[in-house]
């Protein structure tokens, strides 16, 4: 039995301007100790997926419409607030993008580190403090026994993110959800932080969901990858399958548009147009308006169903275009596209 088994997770926001289909039928599972990367652009629903699992969606306007998320045999989406409080911060922890705003500036690090321990474990404050110091040492904060009494502003951005990791892992959770943990950091610090997450994951056997828009970060640390677009799953599989045998036009196009150190091309490939507006119903394939492949058949129609290509590798099998050819043959290389206003953009 997988540690986490999410099926048909659907979260909508009912706003005055209509229904925003932020997450629209996403399924995935995760074994103990595994790392799943959720990749997508802003608005693709990757963060809302995580917040839904943690039940941190503001309700209203948000609502988890349907789906199940079996965690260790119990459905997270059906738990009472009381049961949830027992799971959050104990079995499942989360790190956020911005360590600046996720630490309380008025409290010492020690207070904030110990809180989760005292909440979930029967432990006296002295033992908890020792545990906190140990946790800081494990994420590489020098002089931890002194630094534990510091305030958040006394740490740099990278150090604060280390504190966040220490805090998230102090209860040795089964699952760590990291929402863009390195996006606000410099590349050099990003490398350090990813190294620490990996190392702590190995020590504790924690499963990790890593949300990011950076395919490079995914390649470096994930076993499995879920590619999201317009609130939907476009493709999922092992890292090797997604990077070396991508099937969905969006996955292929995304990989081609990133400037790489290795490639020496003069012009970058581009995907024309804009990401979809999820406050409007999407008919058929979400990527259709931007898809560079030759169209066959009408875009109005059934939503593409997920189809297995090989074990563990599936894609939203879109029949509206002929995507058999390699992406290079169809992606526009030379000209900069006129950004035509997509419906509803204005």
């Amino acid at each position: 039995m997988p540690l986490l088994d999410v099926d048909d997770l659907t979260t909508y926001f009912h706003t005055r301007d209509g229904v925003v289909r932020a997450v629209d039928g996403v399924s995935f599972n995760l074994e103990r100790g595994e790392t799943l990367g959720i990749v997508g652009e802003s608005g693709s629903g990757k963060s809302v997926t995580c917040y839904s699992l943690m039940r941190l969606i503001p309700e209203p306007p948000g609502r988890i419409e349907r789906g199940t998320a079996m965690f260790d045999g119990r459905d997270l989406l059906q738990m009472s607030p009381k049961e949830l409080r027992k799971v959050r911060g104990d079995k499942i922890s989360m790190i956020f993008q911005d360590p600046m705003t996720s630490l309380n500036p008025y409290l010492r690090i020690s207070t904030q580190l110990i809180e989760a321990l005292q909440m979930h474990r029967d432990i006296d404050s002295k033992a908890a403090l020792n545990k906190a110091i140990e946790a800081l040492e494990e994420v590489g904060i020098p002089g931890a026994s002194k630094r534990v009494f510091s305030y958040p502003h006394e740490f740099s951005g990278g150090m604060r993110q280390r504190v966040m990791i220490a805090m998230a892992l102090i209860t040795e959770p089964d699952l760590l959800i990291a929402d863009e943990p390195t996006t606000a950091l410099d590349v050099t610090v990003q490398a350090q932080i990813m190294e620490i997450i990996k190392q702590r994951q190995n020590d504790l056997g924690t499963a990790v969901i890593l949300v990011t828009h950076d395919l490079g970060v995914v390649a470096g640390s994930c076993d499995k990858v879920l590619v999201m677009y317009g609130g939907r799953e476009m493709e999922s599989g092992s890292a090797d399958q997604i990077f070396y045998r991508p099937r969905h036009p969006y996955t292929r196009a995304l990989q081609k548009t990133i400037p790489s150190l290795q490639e020496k091309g003069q012009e970058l490939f581009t995907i024309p147009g804009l990401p979809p507006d999820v406050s409007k119903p999407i008919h058929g394939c979400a990527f259709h308006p931007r898809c560079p492949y030759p169209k066959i058949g009408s875009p109005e129609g059934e939503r593409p169903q997920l189809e297995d290509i090989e074990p563990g590798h599936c894609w939203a099998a879109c029949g509206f275009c002929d995507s058999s050819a390699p992406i290079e043959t169809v992606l526009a290389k030379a000209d900069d596209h006129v950004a035509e206003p997509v419906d509803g953009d204005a």
Partner: protein
Amino acid sequence: MNALIGNPQEDFLVLDEVKTHFDMGTTLLTRESKGVVKAVDGVSLTINKGEILGLVGESGCGKSTLSRTIMQLLRPTSGHIWLKGRELSAISDADIRSERINFQMIFQDPYASLNPRMTVLDTLGEAVRTRHPELKGDALRGRVAELLRTVGMNPFQMKRYPHEFSGGQRQRVAIARALAPEPELIIADEPVSALDVSIQSQILNLLKRLTRELGLTMIFISHDLSVVRYISDRIAVMYLGKIIELGDAEAIVDHPLHIYTKALMSAIPEPDPNAERNRHRIVLEGDPPSPMSPPDGCKFWPRSPVEHSEELKTVEPPLVEMQPGHWVSNCPFCVGTDHQA
């Protein structure tokens, strides 16, 4: 004279030992100095016409301060800046505004850099009129339409407000505004880092094409070496307010000399799982030191994996031309040793 500094009368843009320091003031009661932040601490550089110079470094290395100093939004504490033979740093505050039509800037966040109460026509029209005050009515609209087409937008969008556009389109408007006064130099400060990955490549291609077609010169600032490598002819790597390596983009990326450049490069994650698995990273210790109290000597010694000698912890190594056009801060412990990247 240092060969890094060209001939101010002939070369396009020349920076001579530019320093921009921020005085933190004094404490309230004891009147002790709180110190000086040496954000830019002696940068010399010559940029040729038509060139794209990439400026990379971690946050706090002074790259944005340097760009604002060139723009004369901040006045240098010392040193000189010449643009086409005119010494910008000597022009009075009152006259610098009219001079600025020759050099324009594109900012990181197109949500913050456009006035939400002005339509695209107002924003671009105002910028056009800084160069051509006589233009109005249809002539002005015609010029704005032309600008929008240049940046790949539809002229009928000119009556719209910034909130009606996506981030990528707003950045196009911001680029059009920078082009409107027909400048010769454009400074782009992280112009794509706030954009989605699929939009980034559109904007990068646009910037590169415009620079070539309009014969512009550009300073492109970013913390992302792979983006900088794509767009730049030459790359300057900054660390703690100084340039520590400078050379052709290919040379910097393929054959970096300074260990810091190598570390920056090795920190960039590649979208290739096998390459990532077999990768040997130079992981730097800690964060860059504070520019308020930078280390003496080689600026990099506190973070370097190679132990420095006492001499290099006190005496700063000079910038030396190791190969034609390839300059590096010549510290024997940072350069030349076998650091596996």
